[in-house]
Structure formats: C-alpha cells, structure tokens
C-alpha cells in the first residue's frame, strides 16, 4: 500500500498538479461523507417507518380478512358478483419522485375515486357488512401501498448508501494515500535532484579553483624565469653591451610580463 503511487515524472509541474488533485480528493471525500450521513439518517427513519407499517399491516389485514368472514357468514359468497360489477378501478396508485441528497426515491400515493360499482351488492341481505368489508379492505390496501413505497425506498437507499460508503472509503484509504505518496515521491526526487545539482556545482567550482591555482603557479614560474633572464642580461651588459641594448631588452621584458599576468 505505502509504495503505491502514480506513475508520473517527478517535476515541479507534476507536483503542482498532484497537489491540486489532493485538494480535490479531500473536498470530494468530505462531500461524499456528508451525503452518506444524510442518507443514513433518512434510512434510519425509513426503517422505523417500515417497522410501524408492518405491524400495522398485520393488524389491518387480519381485520380485513375477518370482515370478509363476517360477510361470508351473512351473505354467502359474493366474490363473483363483486368481480363482475367492477368496471373501472376505484383505487389507483400513482408514483412520484422524491429527491433525497440527489437520490431519486419513488413514492407511491393511493388515489381513491369516489363511488363504488357494487354498492347494490347484498341489497337484500348483508349490504352493510359488504360496505364495511370494503372500507376495511381499502384501508388495508392503503397500508400496503405505503409499505410498498417504503420498501422500495429502503432498497434503493440501501444500494446508494453502500455505493457512497464505498466511494468514501476508496477516497479515504486508496486515492488520498496514493496522491500523498506521489507527492512525497516527487518531493524526494526533487530534493535528490537538488542535492545532485548542488554537488555538481561544488564540483565544478572545485575544478575551477584547481585550474586557477595551476595557472597561477605556472605564471609564478614564468616570472621567476623572467627575473633570472634579466639578471643574466645585466650580467652580460656589465660584461660588454651598450645601454641601448639593455634598455630595449628591458622594454621587452616588461611587455612579456604584462602578457603573462593576464
């Protein structure tokens, strides 16, 4: 893990770019973290609601099937009549969308239409019980719709929360360390380069110094030689040469001297 880094060329340019990426990753991480927290809060609420709705559904369904038993006691089997007299749906479910932190949750809404087609069923006997059973069953279906909407939201939210958490963790434990590794790699490479450069300069400087010293030493030698020759000339002139010759020699010596010093 620690060794994982991006395969980049260690330059100052790349260092700037990578640092910008690190900044971006950190912002993204905190945003995603906040999103996941918001979703989890919502999720908890839904879980609680589902529990309530399930308990309620148990009770309501029991009630409903019992009211059907009451109808059966008084009227007998009415299922066929009811089925045949139903021409259009009085109970419809419409779906709309709800936005929770960027997640679209479907919400189902019951849509009741007034009036019933079989209101005359059981006219001679048991009509009241039939209407009562109808009312109870409408309530049961409403509970079912509510539960369905909650369950769908539950499944979708669960998925999204998992996805978000995965992303948060990926950023936290993979991407950010990798970027940090890259940065430290680039830094260390750059430092290394710096050190090399510095050493190189030092080395060059040293060489230059050496060379300068060598040059200076050679000059001194020449000077010494020149001095020696002048002394020789003096000796010669003393022996027998004219003044002009010695003066001309002197000027020459001076010129040579200047050249060498340079």
């Amino acid at each position, binding site marked *: 893990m620690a060794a994982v880094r991006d395969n980049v060329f260690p330059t100052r340019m790349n260092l700037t770019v990578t640092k910008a990426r690190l900044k971006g990753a950190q912002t993204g991480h905190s945003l995603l973290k906040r999103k996941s927290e918001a979703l989890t809060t919502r999720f908890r609420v839904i879980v609680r609601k589902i529990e309530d709705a399930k308990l309620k559904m148990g009770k309501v369904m029991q009630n409903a099937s019992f009211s059907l038993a009451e109808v059966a*006691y008084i009227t007998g089997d009415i299922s066929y009549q009811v089925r045949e007299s139903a021409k259009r749906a009085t109970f419809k479910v419409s779906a709309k969308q709800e936005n929770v932190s960027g997640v679209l949750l479907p919400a189902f809404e019951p849509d009741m239409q007034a009036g019933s087609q079989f209101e005359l069923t059981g*006219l*001679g*006997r048991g009509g009241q019980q039939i209407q009562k059973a109808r009312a109870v069953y409408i309530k049961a279906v409403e509970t079912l719709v509510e539960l369905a909407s909650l369950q769908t939201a539950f499944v979708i939210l669960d998925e999204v929360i998992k996805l978000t958490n995965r992303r948060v963790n990926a950023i936290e434990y993979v991407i950010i360390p990798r970027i940090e590794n890259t940065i430290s790699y680039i830094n260390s490479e750059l430092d290394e380069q710096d050190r090399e450069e510095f050493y190189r300069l030092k080395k060059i400087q040293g060489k230059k110094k050496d060379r300068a010293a060598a040059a200076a030493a050679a000059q001194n030698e020449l000077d010494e030689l020149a001095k020696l020759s002048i002394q020789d000339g003096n000796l010669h002139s003393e022996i027998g040469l004219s003044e002009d010759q010695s003066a001309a020699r002197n000027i020459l010596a001076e010129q040579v001297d200047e050249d060498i010093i340079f």
Partner: protein
Amino acid sequence: MNEVFFNVDAGYLEGIVRGYRDGLITAPQYLNLTQCETMDDLKLQLATTDYASFLQNEPSPLATSTLSARCTEALVAEFQYMQQNAAEPISKFLDYITYGYMIDNVILLITGTLHERDTHDLLEKCHPLGFFDTMPALCVATTVQDLYSTVLVDSPLAGYFRECLSAEDLNELNIEIIRNTLYKAYLEDFYSYCQTLGEPTASVMAELLNFEADRRTVNITINSFGTELSKDERAKLYPRLGNMYPEAQTKLARVDDMDQVKAILEQYSEYKSMLIGVSMNVSSSSSGGNNAELSLEDRFFAREVQLNKDSFEQQFHFGVFYSWLRLKEQEIRNIVWIAECISQQQKDKINNYTAIY
C-alpha cells in the same frame, strides 16, 4: 280433515325431516366446537355429527371454503333425498323452496353472459339446490335476449321474468335490482301458493314468509342509503306482503337514515325487542365496539331461527321442510363462522354465532 290424510302422502317425509332436525348440532356440541384450537380438532368434533361422512375423506389442512362446500353437499344430499321421495303436494312445495336458489343461479349466469365469461365455469359456482334441467343450456345462449327466449321461458322462473322484466331491462338494469325484483315476485308467488295448501301449512308458512319479507324490506331500505337507488325504485323492490305491508313500507320507502327506520320498526312489537342494544351505525360498530355487540343482521338471524323452531311445534303441515332447510343453512353458517374464527385466531368473536338448539 287435512290431518286425517296427511300421513298418507307426507307421513314418511315428515318423519325424515324431524329426524334430520334432531341431527342438528346442539348447544353442548357448539360449545365443544368453539373450544377447538385447530381446524383438525374441529374436524374431529364434527365427526360425531351428520357431516362426518362428508368430511372424512378431506385431507388434513382443512380450508374453511372446503368445509363450507362439504357441509353444503351434506345439506343438498338430505334435501334431494326428500325431493326424490316426495309425492304431489309436497314435491311441488319442495320445488318452490328451490326457486329461491334458482334465482341466484340464473342471476349468476346472466352476469356471466353480460360480461362474456365462459359460462361453463359458472355452472360450478351455482348452488346445487337451484339446479334445474335446462340450466346447462344457459351456457349456449350468448346474449341476454337468447337467454330469455330459449331457456328461461321453459324454466319455472319464466313467470317471474315475464311479470316484472322485459328483455331490455335485462341489459340495462343493475343486476342486483333484477335479483331483488325476481326475489320479490318469488316470495309473493310462494306466499299465494302456500295459501292454497290449506290450514296449518298456510298459517305457518305465512308467518315465516312474512318475516322473510319484512327482513328484506328493512335490509333493502338500510342498504340503499347513500346509493344510486332512488326511493321509487326502492319501493318497487319491497315484497308486497309481510307484517309491514303496506303501511310501514310506504313509510320506509321515504326514509333517509337509520333513526327513521328505527322509529318505524318500533311500532311493531316483534321488532321492537330486536332493536334494543342494536347499534344502528355500521361505522361505529366497526371502529369502537368490536366486542360481542350484535348487529341487526344477527338479530334477524336469531329471530328467523326462533320462528323456524316454532314451526316444528305444529304437526301436519309442510312448513317443517322449509324450516328445516333454513335451520340447516344457519347451522352451516355457524360452523363456517366458527371455523373462520379458529383459522384466523379471532377467538373473542367465536360466540357470535346463532345457536339453534
């Protein structure tokens, strides 16, 4: 003189039907049934009753619908045995009893025809007591017009159709209105037929049919509140007999709520007692008092059972056949109710059945 010759034709059958009556489940047996914890227990308890042979071959997880079907089979078998052994006036009387079921069957088939269903499936749903020879032919007819002209003319119900409905009505009217119109015609016809049978039968049946008519009147009134049924149409559905005909019926035709119905019923001593403690409001009974509170419908059942029991107190009349059938039906309802309560674990309401003996 009726009594002298009664047993020539009817003695055997009367003996049979009184024997059947003794086979009805009694209060201690009901007590045993209500104590059952599972459907298997219930089945075991029912093994000591007349239903034993019909239930013994059922596989163990017994559904209430199967139970109800088997019990009905038992009832039908007993009734058909009587029909097969009946001689003239009784056979006619027994036929009259089945006409009520025929109406239900025909209505079922008409509904199926109107919605273009496969009528063969419908035949299985028909009540076996209301089966008549030409009924399978109803499946051939594809339009309601055909249905009437080819099949119903030959059936015993033709008269009722002719009197109150035209072919157009069959297409236009609500099927429930047709059903109630037919039933009204049937009750009136049955009543007038019973009056021709001479004394004990006439008076016993008059009482039973009057009660049935009154019950229908009240139910139609209550159930038509807040529906599209107009008051004139409502008045047309009332059977033209019963204790409340015609005076209270004309009043009931105009009422708008339960309190007015109550006020009218209180003028009749036999119904006044029924109303005590009855919650007249359906919604309040569904939300608030879910306990042992009885509905008006339950009171009607109790009253019906009482009247039918009374008819066994007299001898030499045909009313016993009608009464036995009604009691048996009530018994099946009770058994199914108890079974439902057991299978749905609603033991607190298990005692809401209407005990017979």
